[in-house]
C-alpha cells in the first residue's frame, strides 16, 4: 500500500505526511528553506552593509564589504553614544526582571499554596488585568511620574514596566508552584521552617525553571518596549537602546551605514544569547504570551 523509502523507514512515528512522494518532500524542504532565507538573508545583508560607508551602500548594497570599514561602529559609539544606551537598557531591564521576580514570586507563592477567602477573586482580577493595554494607562502614569519627578530617571521606566509585567508573571509562576507536591512543604514545616524560609529554601529552588522562563520573557519585553521608553525616559542620559533607534531613524535617516551598524549592534547580542539558550527563550516567550 505504501512505498516506504528505506532511509526514512526507521523513525516510523515521526515524519508523518508526504512520505509517499520524495518529490513532495523536496517541495516541503524548498518552501521551508525559502522562508528561512527571508529571516536569515536580511540580517546578512545588513551586517555586510554596516561595514560600508553610506556612499558605498548607495552605490551597491550587495557588494561584499572587503575590506570592512569600521567607521560606522566608531561613529555609533562616539557620536550617538550607543554604549551609554546599552548600559541604560541593561540597568533598567535587569532591574525590572529582578523586581518582577521578587514581587511576583511572593504573591504567586501565596496564591498557589494558601487557602483564604478572596483567592479566586484575586485570580480573576489578575486575568482581567491582562486585557488592559499600555495605551489605557499611559496618560495617568505619565502624570504620576511627573508629579513624583521621576520622568527621565531609571525609575521612570522601571516602575511602570514592573507593574505592567506583574499580573502575567504572578499567574505563570503560581501555575507552576501549584504543581509542587505538598509533602515537600510538610517536611520543611516539620524541620522547623517558617513561611518565609519555606519560600526561599523550597519554592525558589524547586521553581527555578519557571523563574528562568519568566525572566526571559520579562527581559525581552522590557528591552524591546519602545512605547514606554519614548514617553518616560527620552533623554540622552537615560535613553535605552530601542528609543535610541527611533531617534536615529528620525535624526540620522540618511546615514545608511550608521543605521545599519545601529541595527546590528542592537540585534547581535540578543541573537547570540538566543542561540545559546534558545529552548528557554522559546518556552519563556510562548508561555508568557499565551497568558499575556
Amino acid at each position, binding site marked *: 500500500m505504501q512505498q516506504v523509502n528505506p532511509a526514512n523507514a526507521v523513525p516510523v512515528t515521526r515524519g508523518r*505526511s508526504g512520505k509517499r512522494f520524495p518529490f513532495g518532500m523536496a517541495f516541503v524542504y524548498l518552501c521551508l528553506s525559502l522562508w528561512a532565507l527571508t529571516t536569515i538573508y536580511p540580517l546578512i545583508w545588513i551586517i555586510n552593509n554596516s561595514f560600508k560607508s553610506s556612499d558605498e551602500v548607495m552605490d551597491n548594497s550587495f557588494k561584499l564589504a572587503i575590506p570592512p570599514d569600521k567607521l560606522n561602529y566608531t561613529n555609533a559609539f562616539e557620536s550617538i553614544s550607543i554604549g551609554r544606551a546599552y548600559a541604560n537598557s541593561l540597568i533598567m531591564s535587569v532591574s525590572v526582571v529582578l523586581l518582577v521576580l521578587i514581587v511576583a514570586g511572593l504573591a504567586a507563592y501565596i496564591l498557589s499554596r494558601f487557602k483564604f477567602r478572596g483567592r479566586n477573586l484575586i485570580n480573576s482580577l489578575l486575568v482581567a488585568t491582562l486585557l488592559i493595554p499600555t495605551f489605557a494607562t499611559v496618560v495617568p502614569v505619565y502624570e504620576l511620574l511627573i508629579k513624583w519627578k521621576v520622568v527621565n530617571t531609571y525609575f521612570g521606566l522601571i516602575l511602570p514596566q514592573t507593574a505592567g509585567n506583574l499580573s502575567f508573571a504572578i499567574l505563570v509562576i503560581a501555575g507552576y508552584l501549584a504543581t509542587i507536591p505538598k509533602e515537600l512543604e510538610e517536611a520543611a514545616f516539620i524541620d522547623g521552617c517558617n513561611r518565609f524560609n519555606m519560600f526561599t529554601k523550597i519554592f525558589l529552588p524547586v521553581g527555578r525553571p519557571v523563574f528562568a522562563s519568566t525572566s526571559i520573557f520579562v527581559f525581552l519585553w522590557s528591552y524591546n518596549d519602545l512605547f514606554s521608553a519614548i514617553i518616560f525616559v527620552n533623554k540622552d542620559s537615560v535613553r535605552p537602546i530601542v528609543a535610541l533607534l527611533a531617534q536615529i531613524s528620525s535624526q540620522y535617516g540618511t546615514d545608511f551605514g550608521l543605521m545599519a551598524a545601529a541595527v546590528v549592534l542592537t540585534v547581535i547580542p540578543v541573537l547570540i544569547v538566543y542561540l545559546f539558550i534558545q529552548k528557554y527563550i522559546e518556552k519563556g516567550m510562548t508561555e508568557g504570551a499565551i497568558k499575556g
Partner: protein
Amino acid sequence: MKGDKNYILAFLLPAFLLLGTFVYYPFLKSFYLSFFRTNGFFNKKFVGLDNYERLFSDDLLGAATLHTLEIMLYVLIFQVGIALVLAVMVDSISKGKQFFRTVFFFPIVISGAAISLLFVLIYNYQFGLLNGIIAKLGFEPILWMSETGSLKAVAVPTVWHYVGFYFVLFLTAMSKIPSDFYEAAKLEGIGGIKKTTMLTIPLILSDIKVVMILAITGTLKIFDFVFILTRGGNGTELLGTYMYKKALVDQNFGYGSTIAIYIVIFGVVLSLITNRLLKREEVTY
C-alpha cells in the same frame, strides 16, 4: 498555620501596591479623564459625553480603525496562515526540524524598532534590498513607501516579525497529538494533505483559536513599525499611533484617554466575536 494571615497580607502587598498605582488607578483615571476636556495636566473641564461624540465624527479615527482592520486581515491570513503551513511542513519532516525551529523563531527576540530600521533600508528606493533584487532581474525600481502602498509596507514586517511565534505554538500543539491518531489514519489509507485538513487541523483547532485571538489583540498594540517607518503618514495611522499623537504629542489627555478606552472596548469585542465564531467542543486526548 498560625500567623498565616500576616504572611498572606505581607506577601501580596507589594504586588498589589504596584498594580494599584501603575495599572488599576491609571486605568480608572483614563476612564475618568475621557469625560473631560483637558488642557495640559492642570486645566480640565467636565464635558460629559462630548469626547465620545467626537469619536464618531472623527474621520482620522475612522481611518485609523480601518487601517488597523486591514492590517488585522493581513495578520490573520498571512501571519497565522504562513505559521500554520510552516508548522505542518516542519512537523512532517524528519531532518532539520531543530534548525528550522531556531531560524523561524529568532525574529521574535528582535525589537520592533530594530526590525523597522532594517525595513527602512530594505524599502529604500535607491539601493534597498528589494529594489536591488528587482534591478538585478531587470525591472524598474518601485517606490515601496508610496501613498497607496505604505500600509502594506508596514504590514510586511508586522507579519514577518511574529510568524515564527505562532509557528512554534502550532508545532507544540501538533506534537501533543497522540501518534495512535496518525496510525489509525494510516490504516484507513489517509495521508498527505487530506490528513492535514481532516485530522491535524481539527485537532489543534482550539490552539488556532488562541492564536487568532492573540493575533487580533496583538494588532491593536502595533506601534513601533508605524512610528519608525512612516510616523503615521501616507495612510498608515493605526489606533495605537493615533492615540499616542492625540494624547502625548498634542497633550490632549481627555480625548486621548477616550481613544484608549475605545481601543480597549474594540479589543474585547473583537476577541468575543472570534471566540463565538470559533466556538466548538474542546478536544481532549
